[in-house]
């Protein structure tokens, strides 16, 4: 087994067992000596992906790094596995989430102003627990309300590399 070969397999194994996406740096850190360069790793990831062209899975780059996932289009069969707790979110949840995503950093008050109803504290708690949003600071106004922003995990969940990959708002007037 030559060096390149085993490097490739180690990276493959790492992507396979990791619970979280791996950055190039994290992949490099798996090696104590003979650390591969980031460029080298990138090439190996490309090579791996090419070798997967007949497989049901692929390596994708999301906000917090590379991750191995099943290609889209298999949900019909695979959704029966792992009995995920519901992946449907309420309108209130989604609306609150997009306001945080697009207007961040925002306070609860900002969200309430836009939605015209008070924010359900449970929704915010849920999002914080999922690590989709976090408190990034406090606004210098009465009560010093918390400023909320989305995290990389949020982007990872929606297969996005950065906030700029979010769907653009449509122009209301032209519609």
């Amino acid at each position, binding site marked *: 087994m030559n060096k390149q070969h085993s490097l490739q397999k180690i990276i493959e*194994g790492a992507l396979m067992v990791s619970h979280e996406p791996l950055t190039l740096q994290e992949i490099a850190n798996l090696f104590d000596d003979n650390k591969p360069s980031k460029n080298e790793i990138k090439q190996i990831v490309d090579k791996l992906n090419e070798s997967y062209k007949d497989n049901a899975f692929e390596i994708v780059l999301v906000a917090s790094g590379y991750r191995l996932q*099943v290609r889209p289009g*298999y949900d019909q069969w695979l959704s029966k596995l792992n009995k*995920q707790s519901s992946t449907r979110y309420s309108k209130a949840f989604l609306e609150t989430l*997009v306001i945080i995503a697009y207007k961040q950093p925002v306070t609860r008050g900002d969200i309430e102003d836009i939605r*015209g109803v008070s924010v359900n504290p449970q929704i915010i708690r849920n999002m914080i627990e999922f690590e989709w949003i976090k408190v990034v600071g406090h606004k210098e106004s009465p009560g010093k309300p918390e400023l909320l922003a989305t995290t990389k995990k949020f982007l990872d969940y929606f*297969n996005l590399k950065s906030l700029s990959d979010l*769907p653009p708002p449509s122009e209301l007037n032209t519609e």
Partner: protein
Amino acid sequence: MFENNFDITLNGKEITDIPEDLFIPPDALRVILEQFEGPLDLLLYLIKKQNIDIIDIPILPITTQYVNYINMMQQMQFELASDYLVMAATLAEIKSKMLVPNDIEDEEEEDPRANLIKRLMEYQKYKDLSEKLDVIPRRNRDTFVISGIMTNFNKTDNLPKLKLDQLEAAFQDVLKRAEIYASHTIESETLSVRERMSSILININKNGTIKFTECFTYSEGRMGAIVTFLAILEMVKESLIDIIQNEDFSIIYLQTKTS
């Protein structure tokens, strides 16, 4: 589907005067109302229903409609968020401003609707975005992340240390928040009942069906028997297992609940 003849009674009173521009039967209305995310959502619905441009909402009919809906909600004892009433007041204020001729002012005064229109457009924008976000591929619905297993690898070694008192503290937090045990405290006996429930369930899962008598261990004495019996009763109550006896005095079996 517009019906002219409503025959609806609510709280013993017959509802006869349904607002004319309310084209939803009240029984369906309740279902619909529950879907509104707030006053802005309701307003947008009314506007859309009439094919009006947000930029140029006719404040009079919209206000009338909105107020009618609010009244309906109250008549149906629908739990109404105060936000809805605030909006009703806002609409009324705009309406009155629109009715008062503004020839007193020289310079052109701002359209009283301007602020509301801005809010509606802003909300509409995020409403659309939330629908867009809902359809982009997400984990466990559209994409499935691979997470393989490693053998010969003791993950437990890497676990951060956890002390019992941390658990206690966590439990205290849970209690404080939920106050589930506010009225009754769990005694250690109940605990062992729950533990026994788990162990019997594991046994049933492994073997499919087990004999009632196999659940008991004589060495545990009377106390053990009581705990086991309570555990079985509790599992029946919680619909976790079925108890089966084919005829009187024959062997009693426990098995996983079948529907």
